[in-house]
């Protein structure tokens, strides 16, 4: 590393200490700082959402009234949904790791529209502020805002939909920024074939953000107008049709689950080769699978509405199309596992999270098949089986993916290392807590326990008790993970610039990187996953 200019007190100048003061952070257009600010915001909302989850689980601990009445319960599970989805997981990996790493991975100084990036973060904070007001307005419609019921609870829904509208707009602008950056800001030599898989998944989810989010924007705007001016579009009494609301809502809400999960798959595709010292297996297959999922995800929104009064023909068609989505996901899992074949696998924390991701995502994917099949979905729809399925997909998939990324790129972001033993213990605690919480819910779903129930028949009680206890263990696991990382940000011991010996482009510059990322725009000549290329058979190495 060429010598870097030092700050006044002799420390190496980097993006953290090149400007001081809160104002320099808020007004910063540096993608790395914006990424960190996003990280702080979404993790704090993750904690708030988690508290609501614990309140819900505490109430469900026993049959009948345990802590509070049904009206509070409805508010808590709604806020758990709204905060976790709109404020934490939709920005999630793209806004934090994506913002921080995209320019570094493609060898650029910053995203193409840095001021738009800063405006997007302000827009996100503005939406979050409105959502914060909605917390105190007894919003009890569920995060899906289904039409006839959300028309009665007017002002809370108006606030929440306005918040979701601005958060959606921020998501669109992030997607736009990433799409143009990937197209036009790649360093010389960084062809489409050498793009890291994390960048490919950001590209696929950027397409989804751009094409799907406006539909939810207009749907929530119509719901807002329905509540204020009563335009009658979703109000059955005025001739409107709630099933149309469901169509428009799920047209966005299925692609959004791919916006959540694709970047997590990208993170895992980056981690497994590094810790197995082996090139990723089937790079092209993974790329086609990512972009394929982005394309196919627009065909399948109907499987959320199998029992919602759609015509029978539509149900058959949507069930048939949903299986097209299952295949690319299966292919990805096979590729990850085959990457580990004959590798040199080190059991560091990021690798533990990546392996946990593969295991949990297998469960999420296969239970998705139960819900895609028409015969069984008539029984499973809107039961705890669905709750367990999407928690395995979002929490087991996207959140574990986010933590895998945080642990893997922690040295790159802060130049320090977290405590390895505590991190591993926290991983185990989290893994047990998570599985303990949601495997009983699969069984509850099989037994026919509907979701969003404040009170339940007595025979479901033992499983709810197990699930509630493990929910608190799960929360303790999260506290440990976040505590460990937060402590390491300030007190973690300094570490070398590429502790895991990754060949990817972002590790070639200093950690934490300088303000302009690279001293001189790099010329990329090798493939990012060329582990063991030096003694590969002549001509076989991929450039």
């Amino acid at each position: 590393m060429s010598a870097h200019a030092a700050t006044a007190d002799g420390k190496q100048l980097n993006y953290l200490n090149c400007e001081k003061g809160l104002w320099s952070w808020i007004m910063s257009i540096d993608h790395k700082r914006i990424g960190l600010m996003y990280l702080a915001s979404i993790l704090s909302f993750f904690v708030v959402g988690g508290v609501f989850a614990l309140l819900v689980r505490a109430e469900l601990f026993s049959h009948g009234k345990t802590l509070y009445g049904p009206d509070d319960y409805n508010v808590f599970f709604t806020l758990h949904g709204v905060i976790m989805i709109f404020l934490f997981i939709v920005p999630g990996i793209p806004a934090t790791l994506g913002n921080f790493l995209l320019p570094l991975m493609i060898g650029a100084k910053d995203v193409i529209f840095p001021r738009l990036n800063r405006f997007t973060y302000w827009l996100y904070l503005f939406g979050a502020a409105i959502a914060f007001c909605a917390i105190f307005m007894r919003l009890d419609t569920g995060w899906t805002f289904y039409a006839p019921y959300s028309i009665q609870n007017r002002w809370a829904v108006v606030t929440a939909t306005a918040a979701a509208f601005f958060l959606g707009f921020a998501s669109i602008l992030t997607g736009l920024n990433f799409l143009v950056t990937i197209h036009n800001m790649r360093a010389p030599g960084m062809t489409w074939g050498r793009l890291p898989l994390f960048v490919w998944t950001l590209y696929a989810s950027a397409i989804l953000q751009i094409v799907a989010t406006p539909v939810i924007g207009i749907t929530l705007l119509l719901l807002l107008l329905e509540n204020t001016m009563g335009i009658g579009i979703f109000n059955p009494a005025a001739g409107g049709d709630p099933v149309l609301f469901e169509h428009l809502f799920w047209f966005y809400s299925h692609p959004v689950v791919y916006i959540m999960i694709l970047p997590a798959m990208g993170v895992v595709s980056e981690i497994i080769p590094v810790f197995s010292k082996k090139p990723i297996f089937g790079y092209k297959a993974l790329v086609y699978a990512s972009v394929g999922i982005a394309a196919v995800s627009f065909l399948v929104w109907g499987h959320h509405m199998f029992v919602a009064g759609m015509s029978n023909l539509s149900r058959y068609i949507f069930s048939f199309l949903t299986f097209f989505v299952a295949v690319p996901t299966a292919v990805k899992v096979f590729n990850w596992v085959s990457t580990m074949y004959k590798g040199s696998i080190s059991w560091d924390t990021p690798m533990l999270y990546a392996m946990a991701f593969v295991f949990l995502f297998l469960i999420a994917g296969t239970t998705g098949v139960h819900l895609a099949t028409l015969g069984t979905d008539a029984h499973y729809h809107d039961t705890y089986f669905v709750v367990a399925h999407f928690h395995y997909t979002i929490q087991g998939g996207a959140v574990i993916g986010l933590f895998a990324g945080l642990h893997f790129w922690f040295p790159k972001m802060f130049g320090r290392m977290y405590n390895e033993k505590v991190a591993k213990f926290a991983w185990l605690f989290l893994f047990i807590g998570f599985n303990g919480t949601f495997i009983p819910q699969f069984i509850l779903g099989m037994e026919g326990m509907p979701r969003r129930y404040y009170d339940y028949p007595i025979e479901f009680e033992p499983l709810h008790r197990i699930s509630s206890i493990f929910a608190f263990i799960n929360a303790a696991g999260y506290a440990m993970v976040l505590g460990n990382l937060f402590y390491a940000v300030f007190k973690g011991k300094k570490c070398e610039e590429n502790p895991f010996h990754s060949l990817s482009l972002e590790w070639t510059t200093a950690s934490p990187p300088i303000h302009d990322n690279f001293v001189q725009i790099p010329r990329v000549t090798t493939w990012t996953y060329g582990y063991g290329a030096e003694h590969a058979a002549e001509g076989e190495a991929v450039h």
Partner: protein
Amino acid sequence: MGHSDKEWKRLGDGSLITEDAQVGLGHIVPVKLYNLVFTALLMLTIVTVWVAQYDIGGGHGAMNLAVAMLIATIKAALVTLYFMHLNWESKITWGIVIYPLFIFALIVAGTLGDFSVKERITPSFGHAATEAMEKVATGAYKRNIQREQGTLPDESHHGGEHH
């Protein structure tokens, strides 16, 4: 996936234009073409209004809708191709214009298709819910009920006001 090292157009301090971005600034279009396209647009507007007075028939006013949409699409194409310079843009921009049209067709097909093939069933004997709903009906639902019962208030201003 390009494997070989292509030569790049070197600009300033090493950041380069990638191969699929068009080099050089936008395309200068002769003003005469703008005037031509503008008159064509005005003519098409007059045509679409003129055609609207004839009922060409077809279930659900399908033919009227088809003709109106055809003319509108031609106008939109003129504006997009010549006023927005799409005619001289790179392949990527064409992709960005065409791709949303497929997605729009998808959502209309999925939604309208579902509503049009839905089985209509009616109870063979009385249903309490229907009476309750009809008591609170307003707007379009109320007019449907009145139309079935033939008590539709005939609109006095059938011809629409003209001021």
